[in-house]
């Protein structure tokens, strides 16, 4: 049982549950790297949400006269793109779609995968075999290939890209959820709940969910980084967002032709993807070590 080490910390009595999360919170607040990452992510999120109030240039309005200005041009602090649109505005507005198509698949997969894994782990038997063998089939594809196969077959579009990435992540989260659930299903408190007549649904929702959610959540946060890269990658290939929408992956693709004229402007959208991806990775690492209270 590889999960035994993870579950050891989750068997604290219910009355101490708040104490555990408070400790985790304190530990993560002391983690400088995680806090800096959280702050950067917060800035990017807020800028994307409140973009219309930031007095930015119109991200769709181009001009053939001022195409591909360099970084630092007056009025265009980050230059202009191949159609003369303000890069700063497009990068900030681009956060809206990029973050949506990168994060939504993980949230959807988190909900679906946790439910599937919880049911498979708790009910066990034939249902477990059915769910977990189906999950195995998806593991027979490298995730990039699976995402591109589904997106390629469904055709380009934001919705299709979200659907295909959700399908990629559901099996991964289901596996984690199933293995943590199997680890706690034979704990005494679950046995006690069953003996006192709680229904299977109540046991899963009240007694088990809280004990398995933490580990699954940390795993899912780690997936956001992969999801951001893949979602932008699909757009980069032309399988996600369509022009003229500002989206980092698509911007990177259309600016590829500009690398001989103004290379560093062309590299900007990728730097945004990198920043978000590395911050989520470091934040997820921080949460994992904060929740690992054994040391």
């Amino acid at each position, binding site marked *: 049982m590889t999960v035994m080490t993870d579950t050891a910390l989750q068997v604290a009595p219910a009355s101490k549950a708040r104490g555990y999360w408070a400790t985790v919170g304190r530990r993560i607040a002391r983690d400088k790297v995680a806090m800096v990452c959280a702050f950067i992510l917060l800035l990017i999120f807020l800028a994307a949400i409140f973009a219309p109030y930031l007095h930015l240039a119109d991200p769709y309005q181009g001009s053939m006269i001022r195409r591909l200005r360099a970084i630092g041009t007056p009025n265009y602090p980050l230059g202009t793109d191949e159609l003369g649109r303000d890069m700063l505005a497009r990068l900030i507005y681009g956060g809206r779609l990029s973050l949506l198509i990168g994060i939504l698949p993980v949230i959807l997969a988190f909900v679906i995968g946790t439910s599937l894994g919880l049911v498979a782990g708790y009910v066990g038997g034939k249902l477990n075999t059915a769910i977990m063998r189906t999950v195995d089939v998806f593991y027979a594809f490298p995730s990039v*290939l699976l995402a591109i196969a589904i997106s390629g077959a469904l055709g380009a579009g934001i919705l299709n890209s979200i659907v295909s990435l959700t399908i990629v992540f559901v099996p991964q989260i289901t596996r984690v959820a199933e293995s943590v659930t199997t680890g706690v299903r034979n704990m005494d408190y679950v046995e006690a709940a069953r003996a006192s007549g709680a229904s299977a649904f109540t046991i899963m929702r009240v007694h088990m969910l809280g004990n398995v959610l933490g580990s699954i959540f940390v795993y899912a946060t780690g997936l956001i980084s992969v999801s951001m890269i893949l979602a932008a990658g699909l757009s980069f290939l032309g399988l996600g967002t369509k022009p003229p929408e500002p989206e980092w992956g698509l911007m990177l693709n259309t600016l590829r032709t500009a690398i001989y004229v103004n290379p560093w402007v062309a590299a900007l959208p990728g730097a945004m993807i990198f920043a978000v991806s590395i911050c989520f990775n470091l934040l997820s690492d921080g949460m994992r070590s904060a929740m690992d209270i054994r040391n």
Partner: protein
Amino acid sequence: MFVYIARRVVYVIPIVLSVALVCFLLVHITPGDPLVAILPADASQELAQQLRVAYGFDRPLPVQFGLWLWRALHGDLGSSIATGRPVLAEVLKAVGNTVTLAVAAAAIGFTLGLFFGLIAGYFRDTWVDKVATSIAIAGVSVPHYWLGMVLVIIFSVQLNWLPAVGAGPGGSGSWAWDWEHIKYLVLPAITTSVIPMGIVTRTVRALTGDILSQDFVEALRAKGLQETKVFRHVIKNAAPTALAVMGLQLGYMLGGSILIETVFSWPGSGLLLNSAIFQRDLPLLQGTILVLALFFVFLNLLVDIAQASIDPRIKRS
């Protein structure tokens, strides 16, 4: 050992069949008629029906799957709609280039990953560890297609040292291991290597740390064994898991090469997949994905067997 191998091989059969089913269904989840893409806009109903019969799309799905699987088992994956050439030949030709790229990237990524992982795990919580861990985090977080672009900007556009795209002088398809060809490989291989480098570093670091904290290491040191010999024990214990992770990463590089091959116009299976998608060449799309997925399944099988053969603990469980 033989029983273990036999059991693993038998277990692969249902997986292979399911993979084939998924690849088969891919064509049928496409919105609309799979023939729409190749029919001219002014085609008559009669012509459409003729083509449908010719491709067997008029039969019930299970029958179509049976026939498709039977032909696939005999090495017939149909022919490409765009070029008319047999899909299998097209795919195998392209896979060769992808293997070249993946092997070169694996050589770079695994060497660096093992090195960084071992020193980070051995000198845990020192500055060496911090540097190696940061490189690893950057490696797993970087959008590799963007890194490819940045490398092209630096080494092709600004310094003019290496070619930006292609797989050989004059766009020739035949690969050779001479400098004229290798200089085309350098940038794509480095780009492909960053993710496996990061993942191998993180795995090996964690493994090394765990092994060093075990009692037997204490015992080895207590009996006065030289540190280099203790280190050999660490490597032996870390090898099976590290091998499994590297096998998986090699599989990801082979199957997930589409983004990098697109950036560098590297004529491998990923670029083939890309053109199949955008020309709506469904037989080619289906065939390429099937071949790549089967590659991945068999690579995993090989890794499992290799792991079991060097780690006696696996066979016992």
